[in-house]
């Protein structure tokens, strides 16, 4: 035994890639992988460079206040209400889209007959293909009047809950409608990911739980959902990424106000960084306002990065063992 310990260890990882074709392949792949990183870094640097002068003139109040007065001298701008608004819309969209998507995918994987399931799958994929501008137009002309009635009802019956308060009597251009449109955009993404994940629940485990006499619900609760948790959270985050960055559909239905709408989701007016950018861009007053918009874009970018990091943390944390 002692002999073995003094032997020199040979580096096997070097010889593992000794094959010439493999070596070339490895390098190509590695380059490709890094180029994605370069693109990302390029965008960050470009936006970051525009952000520095903005922060120099506006200071941190660019992030902490809500204002957009270009005609004053110096102009004052703050995007807090927009950043917060983006998150509020995303939360509304999540609350609607996640349960809906989960229920649909559970139905398709575990309950629906095969034919119906594949029909639904195709239908939902089609839903994902609707251009957001069309969805925006639809929301403007069709959803708006309908949702106005829903919101009035919500206000009438659940108005004692702070989020359903409405002082102005105006139920158009609300975060609720915008969030609802975002939910419609998220549902196909989240549903198709969760459907895929759930359909990969190992049949062995389904068998095991069936043989232990558990109901459909407990099987989902303790077997299928924990098994697919990482993938499901990933799917939700994909959808969330879309919701945070979505511009044009929100543009049609949300009234942008430079004020922080904290929680009155059925009150007219809210914020969204992406929509701010597109709505100002057309009537831009000069190079400085362009810089302001690019800086807003930079923080939108940072916000989506933070969401992704948080998502990773959640996925890792929930990967723990069940007792």
């Amino acid at each position, binding site marked *: 035994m002692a002999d073995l310990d003094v032997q020199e260890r040979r580096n096997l990882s070097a010889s593992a890639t000794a094959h010439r074709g493999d070596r070339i392949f490895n390098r190509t792949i590695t380059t490709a992988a890094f180029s994605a990183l370069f693109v990302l870094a390029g965008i960050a640097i470009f936006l970051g460079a525009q952000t520095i002068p903005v922060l120099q003139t506006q200071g941190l109040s660019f992030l902490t206040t809500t204002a957009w007065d270009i005609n004053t001298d110096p102009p004052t701008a703050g995007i807090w209400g927009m950043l917060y608004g983006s998150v509020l819309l995303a939360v509304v969209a999540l609350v609607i889209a996640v349960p809906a998507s989960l229920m649909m995918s559970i139905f398709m994987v575990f309950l629906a007959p095969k034919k119906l399931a594949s029909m639904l799958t195709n239908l939902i994929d089609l839903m994902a293909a609707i251009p957001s501008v069309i969805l925006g137009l639809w929301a403007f002309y069709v959803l708006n009047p309908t949702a106005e009635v829903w919101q009035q009802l919500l206000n009438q019956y659940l108005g004692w809950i702070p989020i359903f308060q409405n002082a102005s009597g105006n139920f158009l251009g609300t975060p609720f409608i915008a969030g609802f449109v975002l939910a419609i955009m998220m549902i196909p993404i989240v549903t198709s990911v969760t459907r895929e994940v759930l359909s990969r629940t190992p049949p062995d485990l389904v*068998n095991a739980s069936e043989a*232990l*006499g558990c109901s459909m619900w407990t099987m989902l609760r303790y077997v299928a959902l924990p098994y697919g948790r990482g993938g499901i959270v990933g799917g939700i985050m994909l959808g969330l990424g879309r919701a945070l960055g979505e511009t044009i559909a929100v543009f049609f239905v949300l009234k942008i106000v430079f004020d922080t709408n904290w929680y009155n989701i059925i009150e007219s007016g809210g914020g969204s960084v992406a929509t701010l950018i597109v709505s100002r861009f057309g009537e831009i007053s000069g190079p400085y306002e362009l810089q302001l918009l690019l800086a807003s874009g930079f923080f939108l970018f940072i916000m989506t990065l933070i969401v992704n990091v948080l998502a990773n943390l959640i996925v890792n944390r929930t990967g723990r*063992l069940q007792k």
Partner: protein
Amino acid sequence: MSTAEFESVDVLESEITTPAAAATTELEARNVSVWFGQRKVLEGVNMSFPKNSVTALIGPSGCGKSTFIRTLNRLHELLPGAALAGEILYEGRDIYSRDVDPVHIRLAIGMVFQKPNPFPSMTIRGNVLSGLKLSGMKRSNHDDIVEETLTAAGLWTEVKDRLDRAGGELSGGQQQRLVIARALAVQPHVLLMDEPCSALDPASTLKIEETIRQLSKEVTIIIVTHNMQQAVRVADNTAFFLAAENEPGRVIEQGATTEIFGNPQDERTLDYVNGRFG
């Protein structure tokens, strides 16, 4: 299945100690035929399983052994297109009658599959107790249950120091014994085993056979196996299934294991047990 019924059987057993009592029938299949869609895969199976006996089901691949044992605890009905005729009597009562809850049946009649299937995201301990959790069954003293069932499954000494590690970290043979412990934790009266050793090495196989012999003092065991020696080693009774081409599977012969292997009445049985088949 009410608990009252379980008790009544126990009482019966303790009072009567004649050999006839030892042969109380726990589970019985009466004229069972099975279909998948239009296709009939099993026909006219009659078989009875005495309490605390071990029965081996043997026969070539595709003759319906797995299908048959899945009808015994109502797992069959979960497959698409599944249909059944005949009766399965558990403690004298048809398990397919309308007022029987399949969950109770599956708890009373446990199952171990060919491929070890512990829940990979649960700890070893969590796996053992998972049946209680999943079915909502209440039992106190979880620590005792874990130790008892793992001991019964022959795994306790190997895992007692790492009960909080993932079930998926164990070797295949250990996983299979873990799965047996999991099935035992809900205190089944019958244990169905579908080729439990087919993925295991000889040493693990022997361990599981030893486990089966120990368990059969308290549980009725029905085991599907392709391993003739295994049938001889563990089973009191053996049933030989066979499906002729394009025909449903049938039981060709059944009886005491010694008879089936030592003195089979049917030529096809003789050929099969001597490995001269196909």
